[in-house]
């Protein structure tokens, strides 16, 4: 996928100026974290479950080809059709072909980050298809013409007042800023669309290799409508979604909703193993599964990056990330945000277009601490930074500063000399940190350099302590 350089600095400046956005993001993430803490606290062996989940994910990804083939065999034996797509273009043309075969024009969709990743809606709409998102949050961002700003809560950046205002404008009828009323108004509109849709497109949360089963979790019932009402169901999944056995699903269903939305279990958990059977009263006649690579396999080949594929897309790392919590998701400039977005961006979009994404972290490690599958997120970002430097994608001035600095620091007298210079500058400029430290001093004071460094003082300490 070719994209232009994402101007992170500009995005950050804009986000920081947007106070309603920041308030909405802070409140929503605080709420999610509190809810999560409550339900995680109930699970006595939470840490053991994280370790187990990490091990299962590691084992699966280490044997990915084997489990994907097993999944294909089981799903095919169950009567579902499996397609393989190397990139976004391939996956979209597979979708097009299926839709043409069924002469499908009206499509309902349930929430799926993978379809966001391949820009499915925009491409299908360009071809004249009508595509409607049916998850409330996704529906809202679709109406607003925006991207989701959070993996599990797409409209998290919008206050309820802003949502009511948007819907009032789009529906030409007054919509109150009450979440329950908003949901019921939207639900009414979506019912007709579900009943008349020709095809349903969904993502996949887990694909069980052993049984050829797709698992989809959701809270609104819209995904269940999407995958059961239309004649054809197309499910799009990354190659990383496979898990070995049905028994493993129990573990991941314990971890995912708790981490994502602070729920013990989502309102709906759909397990789909086959299209409509002879005696079934309903269900789609055809189910197509598109297994998408789109850059994921390049993570496999690097042992330091491979663990990124363990991710189950819960979004907890976004909720806890102090960077995400200040700027929200749109600042990341693409489909995945927060720490997971920072890790994926250079791999999926290229280091040339997203060289700053791995730097969008203070390396505080809150992400790794909360991750239900124990991905060492901030260390992955750190490793990606070394790749950015190795590819010479940092600025020339930064390279020079760090090289000179390393040279000064690698000799006792050079170091002593540089501390003297700093002391001198500090004396000359006094409290004028704004002048000699513009990037620091605009918003923060800077302490003066000590008159005597610890090196210089140490001898004195020895004298007073009599040694």
């Amino acid at each position, binding site marked *: 996928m070719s994209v232009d350089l994402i101007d992170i*600095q500009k995005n*950050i400046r804009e986000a*920081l100026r947007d106070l309603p956005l*920041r308030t909405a993001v*802070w409140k929503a993430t605080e709420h999610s974290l509190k809810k999560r803490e409550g339900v995680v606290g109930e699970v006595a062996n939470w840490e053991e479950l994280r370790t187990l989940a990490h091990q299962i994910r590691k084992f699966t990804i280490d044997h990915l080809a084997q489990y994907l083939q097993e999944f294909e065999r089981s799903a095919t034996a169950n009567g579902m059709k499996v397609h393989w797509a190397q990139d976004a273009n391939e996956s979209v043309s597979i979708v097009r072909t299926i839709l043409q075969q069924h002469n499908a024009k009206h499509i309902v969709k349930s929430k799926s980050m993978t379809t966001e990743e391949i820009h499915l809606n925009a491409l299908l709409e360009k071809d004249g298809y009508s595509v409607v998102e049916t998850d409330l949050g996704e529906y809202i961002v679709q109406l607003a013409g925006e991207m989701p700003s959070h993996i599990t809560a797409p409209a998290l950046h919008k206050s309820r007042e802003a949502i009511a205002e948007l819907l009032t404008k789009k529906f030409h009828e007054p919509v109150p800023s009450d979440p329950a009323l908003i949901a019921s108004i939207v639900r009414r509109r979506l019912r007709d669309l579900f009943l008349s849709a020709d095809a349903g497109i969904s993502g996949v949360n887990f694909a069980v290799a052993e049984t050829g089963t797709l698992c989809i979790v959701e809270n609104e019932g819209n995904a269940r409508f999407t995958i059961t009402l239309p004649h054809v169901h197309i499910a799009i999944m990354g190659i990383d979604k496979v898990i070995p056995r049905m028994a493993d699903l129990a573990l991941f269903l314990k971890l995912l909703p708790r981490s994502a939305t602070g729920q013990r279990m989502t309102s709906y958990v759909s397990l789909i193993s086959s299209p409509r059977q002879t005696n079934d009263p309903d269900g789609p006649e055809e189910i197509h599964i598109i297994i998408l690579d789109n850059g994921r396999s390049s993570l496999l080949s690097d042992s330091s990056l491979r663990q990124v594929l363990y991710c189950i897309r819960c979004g907890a790392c976004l909720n806890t990330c*102090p*960077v995400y*919590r*200040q*700027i929200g998701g749109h600042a990341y400039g693409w489909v995945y945000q927060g720490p997971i977005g920072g890790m994926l961006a250079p791999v999926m979009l290229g280091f040339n277009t997203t060289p*700053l994404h*791995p*730097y*969008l*972290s*203070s*390396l*505080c*490690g*809150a992400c*790794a*601490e909360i991750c239900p599958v124990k991905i060492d997120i901030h260390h992955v970002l*750190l490793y990606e*930074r*070394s*790749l*950015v*430097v*190795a590819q010479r994608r*940092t600025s020339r001035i*930064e*390279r020079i500063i*760090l*090289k000179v*600095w*390393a040279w000064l*620091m*690698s000799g*006792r007298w050079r*170091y002593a000399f540089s*501390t003297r210079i700093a*002391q001198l500058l500090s004396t000359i400029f006094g409290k004028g940190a704004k002048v000699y430290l513009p*990037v*620091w001093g605009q*918003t*923060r*004071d*800077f*302490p*003066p*350099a*000590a008159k*005597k*460094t*610890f*090196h*210089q*003082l*140490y001898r004195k300490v020895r004298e007073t*302590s009599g040694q």
Partner: protein
Amino acid sequence: MTASLFIPCLVDLFFPETGIATVKVLERLGVRVIYPSEQTCCGQPAFNTGYRREATRLAVRFVRIFRDAEYIVAPSGSCVSMVKMFPELDIPASLHEDAAHVSSHIYELSEFLVNVLKTEDVGAAFPHTVTYHESCHLRRELGVIDEPRRLLKHVRGLSLVEMENADLCCGFGGTFAVKFPLLSTAMGEQKVRSITAANVEYVTAGDSGCLLQIGGLLSRHGIRTQPIHIAEILSSD
């Protein structure tokens, strides 16, 4: 028992009193302190910015200086966690053993006091209200969470007030603070709000980087709460 002192460059140049306090606490508890004077920096700024070659150069230097130490103690969770990363760097094979020794024998001050010296009461007195900020690397790289609090609770006259979100990053992050100055400031201001709400005389932490950030914002906003390194509280009497 002998502890070799590692004084991070930030402490050396801007907060030497933190280094002096560290010496005082250790000596008060009967530890012989030595200070290898050829030391400079652990290399973290380079490492965290992706410059592994430059970081390795400084790591090699550090290992050579400290390889014979019985214990290495530093008043910084962040620098200690950097030294613990040394074995992952491309260090010459002849130094692998030394690097492993150095990274397994380095301790942050509060960790050293509580877990090695088994001391929670260091005989300090500090009759003030204090809130404790959890430095990220101390908490998440070293797993040191309770040790500083246990030490503070034994300080005579000190009243420890927990702030909300004590473990939320202050936004310093080394070169992060200058790469994204406004973002870093926004994160710091969030922290300052928690500190202000705790309504205390002092905010303490185990890392001078955090205190540089927090102190710079407190002072810019004219807030009276003072930043102070935990070593200075523990050395006061």
